[in-house]
């Protein structure tokens, strides 16, 4: 082989051409073959034909050659590019290694920003974006009215209404529901040592089928098990099975004693099914029993309704059908006058997807959170842009030299972008670690009443999001310095050696703009956080109607089984009196009383009492929430009372008495004292013996509805919560109170002794959660802004060292120098605050629905924000100012 001489390479002057290569190669073969054949004595024409015959399909081979060549060419190009990138990355690491301080700061800032973004994305994704953890969950709908003042009783349905609705609608594959009035620790598991409290809930027989949940082991309920007289059966939640039954793999078919009733375990639900996360945020449910409709028929509204619509049925279609069916629903089919009661202006069925029911009301908060965390990312980017710009100035010559040696602008911009990518990539890795820690911590915050939170985890989508924000951050903060560098005039850059040259000044302007925007962003965050904080403080200040501090509650077991209601009432009165006497005698107890329901828990309403002698059109008066309480409860709760409390003689032999709340009294007897007046409920006349303050029942922030209290001696309560008011901390009291209860009833389980403050805090936990997050983002924003200001001022001071030296040599005092530096700091901060205030006012309008008792233009918040920013700015300008004033004129002038 002889090498191809240079001049013969003209044929590929315009780059590689695989098609021509293949053609040439085949042609050479045929030519050579023809020559050989001719030399063997063939005629030229025949020789050519023979050569082609022996070769085979010439065209096909050429085509294959073209393809193979193109593939190889492509691979070669990729390899070149790849090794280019590798070289750039290696160079980047070397460069960053020269300046470890900057790299560390940059990576830390990015880690914080990206980490918090990933956490918030995961929360938003879990609560808002991702479908519920059920198959085809978009088909699941919540059938019920919008939230009602009279609590759950007005949002649920009776057994008869459920059956009517199920039978008259056509849109659903199945309709199911659960018993809505179950409180925590409503069951006792006995037979395993000390009685253990457990939370069980009755669900309709088809509950799991409609949701699409399959048991991990065992089976679901059968139709027979939802009939009267069926043997009791139970399904276990996975955590309960592990915790309480040691994950016994042969549990199916065994019996456990629940409230002393032997109950057969028929299955264990999968770990992915978390009832509390979806239906009762902040609580856990251990056991599931079949709901027997015939047994519940007389109980009134106790059922929620959840439907799975047929494929192809739209929400508006189902809604129209529901409204058409609603007038035919009867509270109880035996009483025709109870038909049609579910229709109402604000209480008619309002179909929502189950997802919307579970987390819809959080969407605004979550979106605000997302915005806040996005702003953090923006501030971080601006900050880094600033840092890198400062570095780019220092590297101006390096790039000028590279440019002079033939590096294209694209290549230099690429180098800078790769540097940004390396930084943001490292930040993302660190941030992911941070996010993982935070996310697993959040997922285990059982006391946080946010739905689906327990299903929070760092998943593939979060990883994808991390990549997206890391890359866009890199582009965002790398592009500005990159473009600036690329646009630099080479000669100028080479000449620009002395301080105070033109390039430096131009950079400074850009950097000032960047810092100003950073301050403005921080300003928006601070205002948002401030407004949310003010709202939160306002919520803490709400008069709850009772005093949660120094009170605690425990669920009490008692036995009032008796052949008839009268005997049962008498037995219960005696038991309650005994218990309360005993508990009151415990040292430290100031007051004790019992109620079947507590605020912020389950609640119910029944009937609509009417003031004697007045008439109202049907539906004009709301149903008050009902509490059945013992004497002493009002005092133990710290509820203000006008009139008198119940006493033990308000029993079935005395006249029926009630307490009502102020809201009800105001409407029943406007401008009159309600005490002593008579309410009529059915045929019973109830004497109002006292009026109590409105107690917040459903939520902290809404308006309260009506409340009515019946004495437990006259009306059967639905369980008993003992409330104890004491001067001692609840924990110190728990033992002695439990001991007293055990003495009276050895079966009293060791239920949790819950301070009422905990219950209130749980109700306020979502607001606290959002407020804390936004506040920490604001803090982070402030810190980043301070860093940015410090960076710019400090850089300016360094650059003007000579100038300052001259001024000092000419007699400028230290104070004067300091003042001028601080003034320029202040100028930056004020510009930022001015822009930020305008943006913040727009943003505040957007979040106004999240505020409570706080105007979006709350002057205090804005003033505090401005004050905070100015002081932080002055603080971050102070150190450079100090440094400037300590400049030694002689050495400054001698430098360079």
């Amino acid at each position, binding site marked *: 082989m002889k090498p191809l001489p240079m001049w013969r390479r003209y044929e590929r002057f315009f780059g590689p051409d695989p098609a021509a*290569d293949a053609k040439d*190669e*085949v042609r*050479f*073969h045929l030519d050579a073959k023809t020559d050989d054949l001719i030399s063997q004595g063939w005629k030229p024409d025949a020789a050519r034909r023979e050569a082609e015959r022996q070769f085979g399909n010439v065209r096909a081979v050429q085509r294959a050659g073209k393809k*193979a060549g193109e593939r*190889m060419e492509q691979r070669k190009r990729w390899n070149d590019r790849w090794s280019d990138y590798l070289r750039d990355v290696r160079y980047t690491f070397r460069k960053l290694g020269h300046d470890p301080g900057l790299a560390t700061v940059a990576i830390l800032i990015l880690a914080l920003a990206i980490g918090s973004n990933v956490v918030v994305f995961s929360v938003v994704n879990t609560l808002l974006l991702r479908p519920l953890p059920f198959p085809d969950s978009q088909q699941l709908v919540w059938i019920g009215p919008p939230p009602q003042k009279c609590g759950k009783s007005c949002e649920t349905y009776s057994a008869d209404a459920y059956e009517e609705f199920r039978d008259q609608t056509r849109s659903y594959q199945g309709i199911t529901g659960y018993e809505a009035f179950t409180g925590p620790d409503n069951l006792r598991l006995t037979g395993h040592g000390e009685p253990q409290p457990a939370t069980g809930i009755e669900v309709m027989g088809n509950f799991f089928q409609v949701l699409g949940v399959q048991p991990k082991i065992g089976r679901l309920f059968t139709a027979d098990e939802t009939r009267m007289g069926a043997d009791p059966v139970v399904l276990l939640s996975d955590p309960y099975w592990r915790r309480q039954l040691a994950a016994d793999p042969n549990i199916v078919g065994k019996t456990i004693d629940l409230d002393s009733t032997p109950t057969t375990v028929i299955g264990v639900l999968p770990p992915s099914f978390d009832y509390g996360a979806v239906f009762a945020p902040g609580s856990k449910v251990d056991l599931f029993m079949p709901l027997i409709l015939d047994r519940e028929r007389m109980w009134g509204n106790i059922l929620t309704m959840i439907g799975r619509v047929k494929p192809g049925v739209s929400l508006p279609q189902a809604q129209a059908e529901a409204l058409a069916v609603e007038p035919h629903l009867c509270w109880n089919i035996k009483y025709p006058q109870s038909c049609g009661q579910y229709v109402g202006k604000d209480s008619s069925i309002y179909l929502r997807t189950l997802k919307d029911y579970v987390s819809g009301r959080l969407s605004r908060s979550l979106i605000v959170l997302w915005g806040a965390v996005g702003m953090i990312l923006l501030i971080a980017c601006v900050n880094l842009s600033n840092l890198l710009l400062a570095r780019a100035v220092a590297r101006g010559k390096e790039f000028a030299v590279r440019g002079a040696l033939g590096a294209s602008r694209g290549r230099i911009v690429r180098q800078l972008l790769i540097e940004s990518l390396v930084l943001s990539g490292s930040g993302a890795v660190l941030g992911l670690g941070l996010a993982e820690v935070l996310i697993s911590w959040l997922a285990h915050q059982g006391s946080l009443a946010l739905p689906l939170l327990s299903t929070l985890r760092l998943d593939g989508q979060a990883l994808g999001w991390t990549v997206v924000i890391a890359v866009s951050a890199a582009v965002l903060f790398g592009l500005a310095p990159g473009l600036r560098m690329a646009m630099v005039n080479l000669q100028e850059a080479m000449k620009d050696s002395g301080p105070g040259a033109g390039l430096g000044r131009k950079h400074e302007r850009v950097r000032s703009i960047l810092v100003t925007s950073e301050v403005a962003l921080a300003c928006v965050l601070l205002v948002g956080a401030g407004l949310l904080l003010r709202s939160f403080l306002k919520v803490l200040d709400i008069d709850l109607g009772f005093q949660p501090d120094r009170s605690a509650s425990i669920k009490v077991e008692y036995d009032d089984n008796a052949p008839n209601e009268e005997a049962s009432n008498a037995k219960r009165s005696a038991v309650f009196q005994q218990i309360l006497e005993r508990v009151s005698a415990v040292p430290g107890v100031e007051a004790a009383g019992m109620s079947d329901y507590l605020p912020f828990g389950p609640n119910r309403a029944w009937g609509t009492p009417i003031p004697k002698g007045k008439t109202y059109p049907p539906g004009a008066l709301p149903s008050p929430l009902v509490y059945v309480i013992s004497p002493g409860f009002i005092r133990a709760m710290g509820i203000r009372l006008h009139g008198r409390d119940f006493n033990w003689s308000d029993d079935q032999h005395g006249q029926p008495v009630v307490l009502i709340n102020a809201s009800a009294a105001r409407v029943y007897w406007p401008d009159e004292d309600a005490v002593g007046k008579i309410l009529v409920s059915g045929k019973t006349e109830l004497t109002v013996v006292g009026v109590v303050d409105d107690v917040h029942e459903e939520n902290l922030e809404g308006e309260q509805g009506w409340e009515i209290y019946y004495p437990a001696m006259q009306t059967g309560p639905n369980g008993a919560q003992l409330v104890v008011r004491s001067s001692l901390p609840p924990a110190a009291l728990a033992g002695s109170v439990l001991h007293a209860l055990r003495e009276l009833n050895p079966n009293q389980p060791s239920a949790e002794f819950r301070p009422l403050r905990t219950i209130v805090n749980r109700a306020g936990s979502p607001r606290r959660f959002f407020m804390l997050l936004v506040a920490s983002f604001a803090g982070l924003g402030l810190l980043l802004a301070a860093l940015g200001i410090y960076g710019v001022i400090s850089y300016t001071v360094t650059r003007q060292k000579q100038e300052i030296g001259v001024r000092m040599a000419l007699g400028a005092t230290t104070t004067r120098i300091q003042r001028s530096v601080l003034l320029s700091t202040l100028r930056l901060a004020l510009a930022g605050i001015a822009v930020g205030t305008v943006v913040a006012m727009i943003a505040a309008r957007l979040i106004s629905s999240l505020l409570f008792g706080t105007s979006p233009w709350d002057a205090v918040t804005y003033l505090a924000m401005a004050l905070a920013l100015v002081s932080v700015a002055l603080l971050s300008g102070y150190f450079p100012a100090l440094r400037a004033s300590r400049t030694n004129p002689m050495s400054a002038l001698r430098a360079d």
Partner: protein
Amino acid sequence: MDRSKLEFFRGTLDVLILKVLVWGPLHGYAITNLIRRQSDDALLLEEGTLYPALWRLESKGLLNAEWGLSENNRRAKFYSLTAEGRRQLRLDTKTWQAYAEAVAKVLGATQPPLPEESA
């Protein structure tokens, strides 16, 4: 026996190409000639099938290709072995010899094998 019926087993062509290139760079036509001559005209290949095989080996990195001038100053593409190609040749040669030996043993057998002893 009809010589043209002596068809190539799959993969045979690759190892033959590698082998003939041991002695230095060759262009495609020279490779066909060499294979034919070295097998004493026993192995005939349809010449067109050689090129896809060459390109495949090139893209696998077993061959290196370079344009050069042939004996009569024509532009031709010359192939040579890469280090990877040499390694592959050694490997393939061993495999082929073992294979051929095994086949020869079976075909040359004069009596049925002894019954297998159960260990």
